[in-house]
């Protein structure tokens, strides 16, 4: 009877397509929005992941995410170095400075100062030049993509039109001239201010003077020591906060999700997709069942049991749900065809299609449950009513 059920479903092409469209729409919204949400979520921690050399980040206890500017006294570095279990510890500067481009365009940028000796915490991939070039006089490196975006010379130099910032150009920071000696590439971030790397000592030279200049202390634990134990020791000894990269990513992610309302907004969109899908599928399938009520009644009269009818309705919905889910998921995947420059954040690990599948099955279950009740309650004597 499953074959009969499927022929009934596929025979009513308009309702079948409407049913599949409703479920596909729900699958599209749930999986695509979940993927974009996940993409944005992962981007909040991109800079932390790209600064992957250290076991622990030591920071001001009030600092709640990566873009929070709460520097520490320089003595924090020496206090941390004295903690048992610390193999090495290096300082990192992070501050927001106004950078003047060669054509006079002014851009707020994130200046990262790396430990002069080790250059620990640098970008993951150099596009041109070498990271060691930062040790040259007045050297900075810039993001290869931001050179033609956030750091674009909009006005251009005399005789030139707009052009990307490039190696050899000079940036002005508080009357200091800094020369671009290389470009790097890092994972796309949630935050948008251009990243400019230099050495720690040079960052202190160009940044406005303050007693508190050290953004982070990056710590490597001795081999065989427990990272959490070392973190507790640092916190007990210095009164500062020591977080692993994963913990720092988590607090940054939650801060951004909650403060920006992204969690609620995407949550509502996903919920809306689910509700609209369930309603559309439910209504269409219920109409399909109503249209075929005489046939179900006839089958019941001819000896079909409630179990048989339930299996028929279930098969009809499962097929529609599988097809709708496939179409929706395929359409969601087409989102990846959007150009990288569009800034679209899209991450689809296996959990997202699994979530989408579960959502569609629940949609189909709701739609089918109501329709099934109608089918099971149908009076077979209906067949004798003209």
């Amino acid at each position, binding site marked *: 009877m499953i074959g009969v059920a499927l022929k009934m479903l596929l025979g009513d092409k308009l309702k079948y397509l409407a049913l599949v469209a409703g479920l596909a729409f729900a699958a599209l919204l749930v999986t695509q929005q979940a993927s974009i949400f996940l993409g944005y979520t992962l981007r909040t921690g991109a800079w932390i992941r790209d600064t992957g050399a250290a076991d622990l980040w030591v920071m001001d206890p009030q600092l709640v995410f990566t873009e929070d500017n709460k520097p520490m006294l320089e003595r924090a570095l020496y206090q941390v170095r004295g903690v048992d279990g610390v193999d090495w510890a290096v300082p990192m500067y992070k501050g927001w400075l106004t950078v003047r481009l060669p054509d006079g365009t002014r851009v707020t940028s994130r200046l990262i100062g790396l430990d002069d000796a080790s250059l620990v915490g640098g970008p993951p991939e150099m596009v041109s030049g070498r990271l060691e070039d930062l040790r040259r006089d007045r050297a900075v490196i810039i993001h290869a993509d931001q050179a033609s975006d956030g750091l674009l010379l909009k006005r251009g130099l005399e005789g030139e039109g707009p052009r990307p910032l490039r190696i050899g150009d000079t940036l002005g920071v508080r009357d200091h001239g800094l020369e671009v000696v290389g470009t790097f590439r890092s994972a796309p971030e949630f935050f948008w201010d251009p990243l400019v790397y230099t050495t720690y000592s040079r960052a202190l030279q160009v940044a406005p003077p303050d007693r508190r200049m050290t953004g982070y202390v990056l710590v490597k634990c001795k081999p065989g020591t427990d990272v959490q134990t070392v973190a507790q020791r640092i916190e007990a000894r210095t009164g500062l906060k020591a977080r692993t990269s994963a913990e720092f990513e988590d607090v940054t992610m939650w801060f951004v999700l909650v403060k920006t309302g992204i969690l609620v907004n995407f949550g509502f969109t996903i919920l809306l997709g689910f509700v609209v899908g369930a309603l559309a599928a439910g209504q269409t399938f219920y109409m399909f069942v109503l249209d075929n009520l005489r046939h179900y009644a006839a089958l019941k009269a*001819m*000896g079909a*049991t409630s179990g048989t009818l339930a299996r028929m309705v279930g098969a009809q919905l499962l097929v529609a749900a599988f097809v709708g889910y496939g179409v929706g998921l395929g359409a969601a995947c087409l989102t990846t065809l959007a150009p990288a420059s569009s800034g679209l954040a899209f991450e689809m690990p296996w959990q997202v299609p699994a979530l989408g599948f579960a959502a569609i099955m629940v949609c189909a279950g709701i739609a089918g449950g109501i329709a099934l009740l109608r089918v099971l309650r149908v009076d077979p004597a209906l067949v*004798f009513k003209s």
Partner: protein
Amino acid sequence: MTKADELAVICRGVAKSYGTAGEVVHALRDVDLDVRTGELLMLVGPSGCGKTTLISIIAGILDQDRGDVRVFGADVKAMRQREKAKFRGRTVGFVFQQYNLLPALTAAENAAVPLLVMGTPRKEAVQRAEAMLEKVGLAERTRSLPAQLSGGQQQRIAIARALVHEPKLIVCDEPTSALDQDTGRRVMELLREVAVAPGRALVIVTHDSRTFHFADRIARMNDGSIVGIDAPSSVTH
């Protein structure tokens, strides 16, 4: 063979009413009726007289409020729902006024439905349905969809569907009312020819006086009661 063995259906004091306490409609009032095996019995009477209610009870798709109904010795009312459904599937064949063919299924698939309901493998069910369609004169149209066939042809598929699983009781509800006179006559001839058989009973509800002469007996109903059972020749058109 005793007389009870020859009776396909025995109804004694059957009553059925609809509605609530305030507004009760008595559809059947103490109906007594026997249907013999090998006969074609017609139930006739004005609209609302209880014909449809009576065949619904006889076919096991409706329970009487009072009285006793035996179909080939079985008390259908006493059965559980699942048992009742299985009993209908095995024992009863249906022909409906509006044919009730599934529009997406071919003629052969439609005729095979009772076999499929009983769990017969699809291939075997369709083969048996094709053989039955041949008997009703539709050998050439086994792969046609109902929409591609005339009303008379669709009713012949319905007859094939009612007979394909070799039921012992066939109930027909106004089988000719949607057909023109000539087609209706041919459908009745077909029913008479292929459905009436020893050991099988045929009960037809009809308004169509032009078909009365096909019956062996005619039970006249009025206001929920059987008011007479006659030979066809004695019923006034």
